[in-house]
């Protein structure tokens, strides 16, 4: 039994699972799932630079915010269509990510975490600044409208705005996930991980560490920025208060719990950070934050490789006793 049909089956199942909610879920849960997919995308971005490349970023909320605002400003002030804004948001976030990656070259570990944390704390204040107010709407924020499904689609498949948004988010995220997966699987992915695990050796072997690291930041920022752009339209509103440092912490938690350096883990992570706060709230109305923190720590103790690690181990157990690995 060779691997190809199994992998094909997996893809088909995955697609079905992704599309099923369009019919299986009603508006509110579909909206939540849309947000969860967006979170997964943001966590994927974080994973690229922190999980695969070892540069700890606690400030990815900043890139999320930039992506969201670029899209919002273009849509609200310049009347662009939602699709046109996406590559623009990605490009600008990529450039900012590169700019952040440059000083990050000189920092490691905790210091980088501190710097990015400070960035996350400073971002809302920057967004509110008078100089930018004319574009960003200042503290009042900007309002957007979700795109309506086009006629040619609704004539074939009746979709409401929520369902159409979910479809859009799914497609855009799917493309990003595919690109990321391709990147990680290849030479660059291995180089990223080599830089993470044995930096001095990698450098001694002639890898251009600087280019890799800044590139990782740029790509990571682009992906999280696109997630931000999607979220702005899904929520139809952006305001500086939507992007506090808690957001950066949320992404980090999602990455750790889902599984560091794992594409699948990013998906788990996104689902976790969206749905678990609600679970925490139902457990303890008075202190949902405490429950959330406790769940996080329990995961770190019991499942340090996150959900994805658990899945990996389960799959390994399933495949090893009966079927020996194919040569």
């Amino acid at each position, binding site marked *: 039994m060779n691997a190809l049909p199994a992998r094909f089956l997996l893809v088909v199942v995955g697609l079905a699972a992704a599309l099923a909610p369009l019919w299986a879920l*009603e508006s509110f849960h579909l909206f939540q799932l849309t947000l969860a997919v967006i979170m997964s995308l943001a966590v994927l971005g974080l994973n690229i630079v922190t999980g695969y490349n070892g540069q700890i970023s606690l400030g990815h909320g900043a890139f999320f915010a930039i992506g969201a605002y670029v899209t919002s400003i273009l849509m609200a002030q310049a009347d662009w269509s939602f699709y046109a804004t996406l590559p623009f948001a990605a490009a600008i976030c990529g450039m900012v990510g590169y700019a952040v990656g440059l000083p990050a070259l000189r920092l490691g570990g905790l210091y980088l975490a501190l710097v990015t944390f400070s960035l996350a704390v400073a971002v809302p204040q920057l967004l509110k600044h008078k100089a930018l107010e004319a574009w960003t709407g200042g503290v009042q924020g900007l309002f957007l409208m979700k795109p309506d499904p086009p006629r040619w689609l609704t004539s074939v498949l009746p979709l409401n705005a929520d369902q159409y948004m979910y479809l859009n988010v799914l497609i855009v995220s799917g493309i990003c996930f595919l690109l990321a997966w391709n990147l990680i699987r290849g030479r660059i992915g291995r180089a990223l991980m080599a830089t993470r695990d044995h930096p001095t050796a990698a450098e001694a072997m002639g890898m251009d560490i600087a280019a890799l690291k800044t590139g990782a930041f740029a790509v990571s920022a682009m992906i999280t920025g696109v997630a931000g752009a999607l979220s702005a339209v899904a929520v139809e509103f952006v*305001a500086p208060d939507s992007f506090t440092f808690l957001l950066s912490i949320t992404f980090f938690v999602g990455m750790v719990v889902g599984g560091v350096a794992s594409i699948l883990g990013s998906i788990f992570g996104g689902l976790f950070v969206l749905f678990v706060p609600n679970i925490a709230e139902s457990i303890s109305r008075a202190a949902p934050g405490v429950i959330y923190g406790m769940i996080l720590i329990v995961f770190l103790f019991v499942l340090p490789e996150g959900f994805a690690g658990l899945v990996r181990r389960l799959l390994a157990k399933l495949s090893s006793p009966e079927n020996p690995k194919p040569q």
Partner: protein
Amino acid sequence: MTISRRLLLAGSAGALAAPNIAAAQEAPGVTATEIHIGSTNALSGPVSSYSVISRCLEAMFKRLNDEGGVGGRRVKFTVYDDAYQPPRTLEQTRRLVERDRVAFLFNQLGTPTNSAVHRYVNQRSVPHLFLATGADKWANPREFPWTMGWQPSYRVEAQIYTKYVLEQRPNAKIALLYQNDDFGRDYLHGVQDVLGDRFRTMVVTATNEATDPTIDSQIVQLQAAGADVLICGVVPRFAAQAIRRVHDIGWRPMMFMTNVSVSVGVVMQPAGVEKGVGLITSDYRKDQSDPAWAQDAGMNEWRDFMRRYVPDGDLGDNNYTYGYGAGTTMIQVLRQCGNDFSRENVMNQARNIKPMEVATLLPGIKVQTQPDNYNVIRQMQLQRWNGQSWERFGNVIEGAG
């Protein structure tokens, strides 16, 4: 139109004559025994000091239920946490409306948070009542007929202060310290509204962030600009610091403080009661520590309520007098509904509240609405701190409306 639709429904229900239909929803969130009301608040995160408002409201509905409910029904009040993050407010509000199917929304906290759901609730025709924010954009019956604030707007408050300054010191140099968010910005706009072109020459401003440890630097800066009037739109922590600091550096401006931050227990005592002498505010509520209300019937009613239903609540925290006022207004609307708690009727009653006194509001200040005027409380009274309590002076002032 609503009445004939209900007759049609009643008629068809009668025709079917199935007893179990009585238990079904008559309107979203309403059954024969229960009305489900939804809300969101910052139960966690940096601004969670306002979460006591929700606790107060929960207690009020519990008291209402203990006394037999309203229209023969009990009230179920559900509050979800949004941690003051607009996307989460939208998520929780959609949960309340689409999954929990509440009858309507009541006293949701915050300006950016409510902004995120403003369009949504009006598109869906869900009453969005008595929001816990003084931003002045909620009183807009033409464009957003389903949304209504409650407290007097911060902008109107700032206008009142500025007008008073112009009366007393026409050539004043005004310093404005405001929090760099929607709350503080409303004060800026209020002052701008009154001064117009004179703003640039008469006013110096400084802002602070909610995360700043102290505002000493801003106070020094404003004094150095030669101001003789100081207007503050800041939250309690910074209000206490400001009062203390202004006194300690020997500055004696005519000083105004937002009524959000004038609680005796939470602001004046920490600042030092003798340091705030002369401070002016404009409030619509009675303050617990004011000896004038020690035997007051309304405040006794509130104190009795706190004792029985919120025994561990801090009486000195005027979020509780605030909550009591909002809750009383809501219950009045429910009573006015009679037996019809459909969304249309709830909204209809909410926009037709005859001027009503509330236990925790200052005498002369009434709660009222009309279909073309959604400013629920539009009066305030200037008060001056005398070292022991707030002394009201002047008349009850009506805001811009």
